């Protein structure tokens, strides 16, 4: 364990009264419960607690919290990495994303609020459509299934903050690697069909989405997140109200019985536990639409500098990104390895991926990968290549995707913004070829 610069032990040695006040609560919050609290923090009872001198703090508590990641343990979910547990946010490491279609158990989890109760009768789950429409609707899930054409598509869904950990200085929020992405097979109905049934007024320009997840503070009636999209995106034939995921009823943790799926745009637009679509006559101003949330800069700003709200614009299409999925970061390869097949996925928001290149020499030379067409628009694309190593030693495999408009992933994350959106630097995987 690393030694902190000035641990509690030093503090106790130098000034026990002040240390006691510090550790046991300036407001006496922990008085009487201090040992139990320490035990709880350690995850175990403290033997010989009765013999501990007053105010003694176990060493583990004087250290910075351990950096080892916590893995999720939940029925129906694989051991993906917990970034935080309240709200529950979990990342799928890139090497667990090798499947052509991401299985439900490996799909990343992003919540902005609490997790609502499981619907007793999923078919009776209701979704309201109101606002700038001729006929406000209230549709049960069972009704959606019978009244509208069924659609099944493979769609990529990516958190707006994917890649945030690459920002320098650090951007605020969950420090995602590249694993806030999945591409599952979704079944449901087109949002445009539902909006057509409600009849859009000429004044309709934007959507506002609402879900059943409670605000973390427990404040009743307070939305935890409520984002929306321009009407053109809502009317895209790939924008769905989703009821099934990979042939199963949409899992509760992924927003079941019903969620929106707005592919290629920040995942926050794909409202989970969908209860209402409010058609607006102006840009939606719900939770997460304003300020610096889900916004990037119009003109580049000084990294870490003072934010000018007027310089921020809503992030719509996600930028191009590729991941290496068949080689784990930190893999040791057998002695004599000189060739390695590598593969992964690439995607580019509203665009397609035009090219993927790989390098094992820090970008000095690149090799063009074989790239497959997407299963349908907004599905990620499989790429594969063979890497050659001239010798034993330490290598980094880099993957770089270029979108159909000619924009490539950069070497380092640029376009700094306070919440860290659009961080799409190359995926880098370190390997060691044994001597």
């Amino acid at each position, binding site marked *: 364990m690393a030694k902190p610069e000035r641990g509690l032990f030093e503090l106790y040695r130098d000034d026990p009264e002040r240390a006691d006040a510090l550790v046991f609560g*300036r407001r006496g919050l922990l008085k009487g419960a201090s040992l139990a609290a320490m035990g709880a923090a350690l995850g175990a009872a403290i033997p010989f607690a009765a013999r501990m001198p007053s105010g003694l703090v176990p060493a583990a508590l004087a250290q910075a919290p351990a950096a*080892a990641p*916590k893995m999720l343990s939940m029925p129906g979910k694989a051991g993906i990495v917990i970034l935080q*547990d309240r709200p529950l946010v979990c990342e799928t490491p890139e090497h667990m994303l090798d499947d052509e279609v991401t299985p439900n158990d490996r799909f990343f989890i992003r919540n902005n609020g609490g997790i*609502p109760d499981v619907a007793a009768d999923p078919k009776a789950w209701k979704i309201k459509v109101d606002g700038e429409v001729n006929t406000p609707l209230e549709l049960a899930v069972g009704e959606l299934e019978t009244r509208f054409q069924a659609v099944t598509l493979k769609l990529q869904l990516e958190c707006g903050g994917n890649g945030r950990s690459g920002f320098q200085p650090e951007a*605020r929020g969950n420090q995602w690697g590249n694993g806030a992405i999945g591409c599952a097979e979704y079944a449901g109905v087109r949002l445009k069909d539902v909006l057509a049934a409600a009849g859009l007024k000429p004044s309709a320009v934007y959507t506002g989405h609402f879900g059943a997840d409670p605000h*973390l503070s427990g404040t009743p009636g307070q939305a935890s997140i409520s984002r929306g999209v321009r009407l053109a995106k809502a009317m895209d034939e790939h924008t769905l109200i989703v009821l099934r995921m990979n042939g199963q009823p949409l899992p509760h943790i992924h927003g079941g019985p019903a969620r929106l799926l707005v592919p290629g745009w920040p995942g926050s637009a794909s409202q989970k536990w969908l209860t209402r679509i409010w058609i607006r006559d102006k840009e939606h101003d719900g*939770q997460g639409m304003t300020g610096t949330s889900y916004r990037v800069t119009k003109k580049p700003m000084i990294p870490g500098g003072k934010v000018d709200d007027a310089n921020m614009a809503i992030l719509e299409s996600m930028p191009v990104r590729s991941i290496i999925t068949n080689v784990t970061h930190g893999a040791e390869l057998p002695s004599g390895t000189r060739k390695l097949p590598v593969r992964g996925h690439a995607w580019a928001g509203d665009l397609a991926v035009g090219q993927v290149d790989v390098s094992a020499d820090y970008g000095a030379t690149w090799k063009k990968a074989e790239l497959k067409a997407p299963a349908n628009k907004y599905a990620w694309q499989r790429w594969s290549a063979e890497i050659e190593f001239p010798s034993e030693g330490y290598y980094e495999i880099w993957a770089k995707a270029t979108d159909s408009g000619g924009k490539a992933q950069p070497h380092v994350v640029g376009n700094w913004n306070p919440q860290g959106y659009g961080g799409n630097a190359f995926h880098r995987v370190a390997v060691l070829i044994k001597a």
Partner: protein
Amino acid sequence: MRLNFATLSVAVILATIVVLQLEKARRPPPRVAAAPAPAAPAQVARATDETPEALPAGIGRDETFYLCTACHGTAIIRQQGMSRQRWDETFDWMMERHRMPDPGAADRALIVDYLAASFPPRQQRGRSNPFANQ
């Protein structure tokens, strides 16, 4: 009460040994706090078994813990590394984005000072070296 230094030193060593063993022993079973039982997931989402010791010691630690965990766990705090100015801006952002009640200037200053001192910008960024110990 002022402790005898020799007694304290012995106790510290004993406690350290005990704690290191406890640390080792508790590593295998993953924490299941994040796993909502199908019966009552909403409760699990709100419940927490965290205590102020989840955050590093320092002036303002308890105030920080109780204010922040009224809404979220400490993991999101511990992921960050920001300057004092950016921690201060984070209060504006939480009040705007998450409708957090204004904690008042005095508590805000105390907590921002604690966060800036405990979670400053990290020097080293980017990919980890998985072979660092070889």
